[in-house]
């Protein structure tokens, strides 16, 4: 394992020097809160499994499986992985690279590994179960690691192909949404975890083994799944190594970038705004529209929001009178904000990478630059919500001017607070992002952790508006509180902008350095 050891050593050195220069304050706080929550969940699972277990654990392991395999795809963040483009130049055996890549799948779902650990400790403490039942958890974990490599490689290759990227992702979302749709109906959930498929799924076989039901048969099923996942992942990994991403994403030389309707679309901001603001927003619109990653999250916010939240809102429990049923448009709109948030709010200089230095070199006040970024974020958010509303209308969903007004105003208020928080983070925690990589290499958990910490705070003002509507049964009260929120949001935004601009002047050297930073052999 000489080469694998060298790769890990190089990555460790890169990570160490990066954190020594940048500090780990924010990352540490977010991690403590986020993983603290999951440690608590693991403790709860430990309590569940350390006493006699009523019913099947199949549902728990199904959720673990879905979190491990589906959530990274839905959050477009699949965890750390090897940068094969760089490493292929060196004489490293494929087996070692594959082994490392399997290990790195741990980073895609540290949360559920904590939960499985809790379950394992519980099983060891359970007097009704034998200690070796824990073996099933270990095999289930390895199965997920292997499957994760195969799925990630397959999806990454599909998304690298220029012509089919968006279409492929649309199909992927449909597939990913399927379990979510099934989970909204208890009957479907039961079908997935028990009859009429008696125990051959990896999660039910794991549960059977853990609970001591037909252990030989369960072990054989788990072993078969493990072998299939191993073959699949190794096959996909080898295909990825041979894959020519540049050729797959190449454009025909005759293709035009600036034709017709698209060019008019790009010029919209400049028709409304004077320079330099117009130029800055137009640049952002051109740039983000062409970024595969941004296009993907834009599409995800739009399609996944509709596919997942509409059935929930309109499902068996989601009658027209439920909260989701009456506010589905706002819920889908806010969900799309979540997906757009990284590029639009938290790391608005990330896609510019080292080119962000132009903002410090050009004779433009930095507040204008930040406003340009913020206005382009609002432009895309408005576009996204407009498209969601249009499709809802075409699908015959209940849609009224009031619902539209609610959706746009709720999103606008939340966006104001998000921009205030995001401007601070974009300056203080900038991170170079590859606009051509459809998947983020950071773990989905990190994205969720930020949401976990910041979003509850950002939702408070809007929550108060909904509370006012509920308490006074009045739309006027709802919109009145929203108006007040908007006024407070504007003040908070202004204060945050001034502070961010001052910080940018102070931290510009560190910012440019952080945004110019290349990645190591492992992209994390």
């Amino acid at each position: 394992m000489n080469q694998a050891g060298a790769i890990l050593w190089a990555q460790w050195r890169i990570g160490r020097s990066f954190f020594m220069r940048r500090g780990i304050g924010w990352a540490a706080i977010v991690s403590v809160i986020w993983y603290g929550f999951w440690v608590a969940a693991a403790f709860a699972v430990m309590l569940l499994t350390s006493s006699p277990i009523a019913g099947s654990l199949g549902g728990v392991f199904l959720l673990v499986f879905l979190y491990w395999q589906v959530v990274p795809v839905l959050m477009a963040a699949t965890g750390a992985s090897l940068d094969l483009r760089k490493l292929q130049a060196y004489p490293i055996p494929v087996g070692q690279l594959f082994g490392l890549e399997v290990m790195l799948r741990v980073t895609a779902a540290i949360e559920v590994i904590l939960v499985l650990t809790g379950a394992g400790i519980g099983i060891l403490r359970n007097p009704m179960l034998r200690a070796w039942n824990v073996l099933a958890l270990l095999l289930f974990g390895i199965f997920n690691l292997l499957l994760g490599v195969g799925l990630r490689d397959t999806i990454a290759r599909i998304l690298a192909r220029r012509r089919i990227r968006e279409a492929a992702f649309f199909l992927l979302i449909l597939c990913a949404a399927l379990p979510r749709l099934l989970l909204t109906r208890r009957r479907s959930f039961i079908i997935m975890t028990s009859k009429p498929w008696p125990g051959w799924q990896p999660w039910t076989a794991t549960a059977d083994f853990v609970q001591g039901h037909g252990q030989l048969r369960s072990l054989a099923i788990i072993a078969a799944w493990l072998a299939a996942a191993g073959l699949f992942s190794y096959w996909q990994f080898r295909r990825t190594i041979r894959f020519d991403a540049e050729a797959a994403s190449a454009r025909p030389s005759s293709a035009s970038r600036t034709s017709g309707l698209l060019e008019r679309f790009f010029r919209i901001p400049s028709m409304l705004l004077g320079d330099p603001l117009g130029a800055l927003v137009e640049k952002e619109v051109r740039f983000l529209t062409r970024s595969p990653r941004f296009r993907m999250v834009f599409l995800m916010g739009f399609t996944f929001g509709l596919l997942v939240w509409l059935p929930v809102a309109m499902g068996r429990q989601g009658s027209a009178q439920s909260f989701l049923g009456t506010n589905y448009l706002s819920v889908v709109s806010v969900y799309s904000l979540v997906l757009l948030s990284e590029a639009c709010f938290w790391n608005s200089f990330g896609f510019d990478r080292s080119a962000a230095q132009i903002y410090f070199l050009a004779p433009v006040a930095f507040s204008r630059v930040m406003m340009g970024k913020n206005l382009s974020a609002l432009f895309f958010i408005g576009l996204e919500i407009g498209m969601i509303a249009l499709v809802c209308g075409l699908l015959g969903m209940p849609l009224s001017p009031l619902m539209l007004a609610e959706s746009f105003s709720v999103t606008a208020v939340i966006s104001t607070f998000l921009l205030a928080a995001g401007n601070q983070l974009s300056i203080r925690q900038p991170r170079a992002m590859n606009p051509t990589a459809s998947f983020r290499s950071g773990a989905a958990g990190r994205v969720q952790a930020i949401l976990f910490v910041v979003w509850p705070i950002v939702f408070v003002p809007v929550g108060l508006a909904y509370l006012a509507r509920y308490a006074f049964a009045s739309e006027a009260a709802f919109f009145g509180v929203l108006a007040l929120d908007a006024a407070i949001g504007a003040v908070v935004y202004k204060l945050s902008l001034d502070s961010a601009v001052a910080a940018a002047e102070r931290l510009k050297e560190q910012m440019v350095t952080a945004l110019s930073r290349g990645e190591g052999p492992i992209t994390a």
Partner: protein
Amino acid sequence: MSDFSRDTTPAIEVRDLRKLYDQKAAVDGLTLSVPRGCFFGFLGPNGAGKTTTIKMLMGLAPPTSGSIRLLGLPMPEEGLAIKRQIGLVPDESLLFDHLTGGEFIEFVGRIYGLERAVARERSQELLNLFELDDASRKLIAEYSKGMRKRVAMAAALIHRPQLFLMDEPFEGVDAVGARLMKDILLEQVRHGATIFLTSHVLEVVERLCDRVAIINEGKLVQEGSMEELRGSSKTLEDAFVRAVGVGTMRETLDWL
């Protein structure tokens, strides 16, 4: 002849400039004066402090101590006024990969305050001048290294600056491209502009520059006209090697 050189204050005036990184001096007491209308070469071995100096001149890195005046104005106090008159070619990383060459140049023009129509027209003309018109609709991400340098230089020219700060502008550029870029830069100097460039290509510096400074370990070790610098040496390379004190290979390795 000269459009810009009526003002007699130096284009660049640096006094006792110092930049410390964790107590280590990247630039250590640099004092330098670059007259207007001069083609100035700033040389030094790797890690000598050239890029740090140019970053401080551009306002990207604040100096730990010392003063900078560009075109007679103090930096950073008059930062915006200075930036309006400067053309920059920091390095190729300045470019936005997901814009086409034409879009990037137009964007820079508008950022520098040109009217949209003027920026668009000049962008097209600059693409033609730098022989990039065939690639005008390609994304910068698809450009070769030399093409990226040409775009960066074209963008630096769009607002007709008085002073150019260029970090390795000829790096990775082929002979034809380099010739084109040299001609354009010489034309700018003839019109009174001042050019301050760093380069490792000593042959280029020797042919283009009126004055040269050599920096080593953060300190200025030599400065003067090309003739003064060469002194008794045949070439600039000999003078450079002598100035920075680097000898020939001192020892061999058994295994090599």
